[in-house]
């Protein structure tokens, strides 16, 4: 049985109690704005009623209001891919997305990736392949890499040859330079998920 990848608690520190406290602070994700909007976000299949600041980006709401620390903040400017999540089945950079605009969308984070695709939590073929191929060093970019990889693998318009995959994955930077193993993992997961296609 493949080992389970647990949602990371992130580089930050947050006891469950502290999380609850943050969640009650309506404007935690921006800290600057007093007017909040009430929105319903569907994250990993669960609906959440939230008070969110107009300028809060999805990344901060996921981490600070919902306590989903698997999604990482690398650059906060669309330049690294660490914050990649799925919105309506497509990979996106959650650091450049307003949370308020996602009302009604289906959002999937690394914590819900496996279950969203019908696997047991932590057992998405991409997760298993990353473990098998040692496709990380520090692990900071890993959640984003896996979210992009899963979307790329299920995208019929992206071919499985090395050039196409490298191009499709290029929005996810790995400071540790684990690219070779990442590519191996993605190719292996793709093979398992799509067979010869």
């Amino acid at each position, binding site marked *: 049985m493949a080992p389970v990848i647990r949602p990371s608690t992130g580089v930050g520190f947050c006891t469950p109690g502290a999380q609850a406290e943050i969640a009650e602070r309506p404007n935690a994700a921006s800290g600057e704005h007093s007017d909040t909007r009430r929105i319903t976000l569907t994250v990993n299949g669960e609906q959440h009623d939230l008070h969110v600041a107009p300028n809060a980006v999805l990344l901060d709401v996921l981490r600070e209001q919902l306590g989903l620390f698997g999604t990482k903040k690398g650059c906060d400017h669309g330049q690294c891919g660490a914050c990649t999540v799925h919105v309506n089945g*497509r990979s996106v950079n959650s650091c450049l997305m*307003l949370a308020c605009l996602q009302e009604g969308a289906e959002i999937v984070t690394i914590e819900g990736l496996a279950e969203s695709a019908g696997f047991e939590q932590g057992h998405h073929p991409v997760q298993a392949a990353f473990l098998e191929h040692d496709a990380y060093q520090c692990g900071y970019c890993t959640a984003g890499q896996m979210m992009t990889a899963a979307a790329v693998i299920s995208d019929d318009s992206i071919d499985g040859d090395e050039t196409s995959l490298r191009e499709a994955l290029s*929005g996810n930077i790995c400071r540790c330079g684990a690219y070779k193993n990442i590519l191996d993992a993605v190719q292996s997961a793709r093979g398992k998920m799509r067979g010869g296609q």
Partner: protein
Amino acid sequence: MRAFELESVEAIDQAVSHRRVHDGEAFIAGGTTLLDLVKLDVMQPEKVVDVSRLPLKRIETLEDGRLKVGALVSNTELAKHEIVMRDYPVLSEALLSGASTGLRNMASTGGNVMQRTRCPYFRDPAMPCNKREPGTGCSAIEGINRNHAVLGTSEHCIATHPSDMCVGMVAAGATLVLEGPDGQREVAFEDYHLLPGDSPEREHDLKPGELITHVILDAPRSGGQHYLKLRDRASYEFALASCAAIVNLDGDNISEVRLALGGVATKPWRADAAEAVLKGQPATQENFEQAAEAAFNDAVAYSHNGFKITLGKQAIVRALRDATAAARG
């Protein structure tokens, strides 16, 4: 990130009438330019108007053969639309060479037209910049200007226009449809972006309160097409020099040619001088090189970006070679 008010609109007239009332308002579509720049404090909207739910997400063929693209069609959808891949490959290739898979899923057609320069001084509010704060001076002219433009510059600003999509559209030929408080108007795509001149803060011909609703691509030009993008790394990087080429052959001679350049100019650049050299001439390496020379006749190099003139010429020659090969089939 600074605070702003957020208003969502469901209808085009709502979006347009909004901005008539207030200055200091900005639309948001994908958010990949706007939020980046608000976080840097380069753009400081008091109010953001969410246009992402407007019914501008369709791609349709018009009776006259042109292709009408809604402003909210994403860069991914546009690049991978079957008609675009078949009839406007130069545009599809340009789009797919830009940004990353995730960003292209978010980026809209209208937002891409409106994206701002990546000049590092523009992106840093601590530095003088005529585009961000008119009259403060240009930090790039005497500064680190390796990524800056060599065509269309002025003594007030030398910032490169960063878009790949726009270069593909200039080559393919297009018209922008704008909707404003005073009704609808159309602008030729090539005339939309402005040269910096003495007012680099004015970047385009969009009047206060106007919204881009569509881009209409000219009826497809037959012939071979190619977009070549040269940059510091092979992917997820802006162009140092790029060239969109569409070539039609009559035997061995070039009957029609459209050339546009990116990465080297202050706006998406139509290389008409190069086109004039090629028209009616044999499609040879020598003529390609002469066309490339003509394209950079008026180029002005600054301390760190002289290499772009050489690189730009090579981009033209290579793009022409590939487009010609495609035209031969």
